[in-house]
């Protein structure tokens, strides 16, 4: 082989090798999130195995007092930006007047205002905590062009910020407004059910701080779970069932005005 041939070969070989090795890395990386490897056992406890769990949440609308602790705790726990338009969870207040007029406010936006409606004209009022519904048939996962958002084996819909390209198709596809583009990372962000806490056997922050137990978290695969009991004792509804997203956040005593 003379020098010219060698150089010719090198011109093809090196870039091709680079592309192939990048491809191999990508191909290998693809499977990791779905089959999250169990963390190493700590303190003699059994290692966490996602195959044995399937998480969901119950919300008892009648128990929510609108204290907004959940939204505050969520922002603190997950580093959600402070501005009043980035939320992984928030609380809505509904006031429904005699003439059928519905006023909805997001009490997590900051100063909680008294309703301006005439109290005598109000027929019913209630609070509704909102969060990602961790749908079993999630439109956001369907549309993500790069598999950056995915469903874990234990049922949480989460985003890999290292993979997300920030196209925001998932934000458009979510019927619940549960996603936002993180202003720092420029990637999609959303509720994870506090996945980092789940794998340690802890509850999501919003559930932990709720003073009235309006939020019930649990494992649908465990018969002893509080969520399974909640599902047995209440008549349940999910948000926008007509869209066939199959949410895993179940609402008890939900009003028909809530979307």
């Amino acid at each position, binding site marked *: 082989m003379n020098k010219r041939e060698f150089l010719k070969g090198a011109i093809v070989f090196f870039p091709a090798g680079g592309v192939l090795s990048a491809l191999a890395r*990508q191909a290998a990386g693809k499977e990791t999130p779905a089959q999250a490897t169990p963390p190493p056992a700590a303190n003699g406890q059994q290692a966490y195995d996602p195959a044995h769990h399937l998480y969901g949440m119950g919300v008892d609308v009648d128990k929510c007092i609108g204290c907004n602790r959940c939204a505050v705790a969520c922002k603190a726990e997950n580093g959600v930006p402070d*501005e009043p*338009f*980035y939320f992984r969870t928030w609380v809505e207040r509904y006031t429904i007047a005699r003439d059928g007029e519905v006023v*909805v406010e997001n009490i997590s936006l900051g100063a909680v205002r008294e309703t301006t409606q005439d109290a005598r004209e109000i027929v019913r009022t209630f609070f509704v905590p909102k969060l990602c519904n961790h749908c079993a048939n999630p*439109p956001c996962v369907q549309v993500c062009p790069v598999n950056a958002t995915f469903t874990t084996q234990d049922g949480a819909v989460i985003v890999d910020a290292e993979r997300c*390209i920030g196209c925001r198709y998932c934000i458009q596809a979510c019927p619940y407004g549960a996603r936002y583009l993180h202003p720092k990372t420029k990637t999609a962000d959303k509720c994870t059910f506090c996945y980092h806490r789940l794998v340690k056997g802890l509850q999501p922050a919003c559930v932990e701080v709720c003073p009235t137990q309006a939020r019930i978290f649990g494992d649908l695969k465990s018969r002893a779970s509080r969520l399974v009991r909640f599902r047995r004792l209440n008549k349940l509804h999910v948000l926008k069932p007509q869209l066939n997203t199959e949410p895993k956040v179940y609402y008890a005593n939900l009003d028909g005005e809530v979307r």
Partner: protein
Amino acid sequence: MSPHGGDGLAELLGQITGFIFPNEIEIHWSILIVVYPYVTGLVAGAFILASLVKVFKVKEVQPTYRLALLTALAFLLVAPLPLLLHLGKPLRFYEILLTPNPTSAMAMFGFVYAWYLMGVLLLEIWFEYRRDLITLARTARFPLNWVYRVLSLFSRDVSEAALAFDRKAIQFITIIGIPSAFLLHGYVGFIFGSVKANPWWSSVLMPIVFLMSAIVSGIALVIFLYMVLAGIRREPIDMACLDKIASYLFYAVIVDFSLEALDFIHRLYQSEESVKILGSLITHKLFMSLFVIQILLGMFIPLGILVLAKMRGFGDELRKLLYFTAAILIQLGIFATRWNVVIGGQLFSKSFRGLMTYKMEITGIEGLVAALVLLALPFAVLYVLIKLLPTRRLDERTPVTG
């Protein structure tokens, strides 16, 4: 902070009417995403016009054949730029090609685009220009002769058999090209039409409406370019050609309008859960861009103009003026159509209880200036292409094709 800084959004908080989900304040798909379907639409439309010559043997349109192909190429080369600039993480764009999610409509972009660019457009242009490139490689001066030699892929065969093969190849590529052009733009419509969470987008008609409006805008663009080019070159305009294209434009606008009217009436008549919020969307937020620009200026007036011109009572000069005006108004209208779909679909809350506001930036990567640059860029590309590749066959006496 960059484009979507917290400050800008805080300002928008005061402009909400009714109730919206808190994360919805940010309009995620900005003016750049309006530019993207507009530009791809022009590609598909221009290509379909070019195909008329080869597949349907419409001889009159021959003078615009090459111009339409080059226009399609110029716009196709620019089409991915608005998408790329819009990404939160533009440097990760290659992931969409390396690890595409097969269930994502958007992930197919790279493949549809690559197929259309390499499998259809570049191939057809190469076969169309092959003989001219060989001639130019011989006659042009250094270094252009080398450019032509490379562009011709070092082919030298101008025998009758080779030219016959060129003709056959073009015929074949065009036949594949028409469904491909449909795919390219229908697919863009599908990206929007398949979002079930958004009732303004979610419609099975969306890909077809996108396609028809693409054909309308592409034809209008070729009329515009053909007339401008003739003006610059001080060449006479082939009126038979112009009349023919204008009549295609007329029919395309009629079909486009019918489809959009069908969509509108269907929504109104079905009167689903979202009908109230969509009603206030079009009356409060889209009145100007939908009723005035898209429908009145972009459809009714050009239709009226084309009908007038079709009556043939006018001389050539007046007809030219009428066609030119109609072509420009139609461009305006189709841009407004894209705006109304993309921006309009993000101005109402998915709670169906409130409306948001889109405040376009002027500078910044997703601002008006960037959009204008991206809209001007294809014309610059086209200028270079036309300089390199003649829009008329070098030897008109013995036509290579058609």
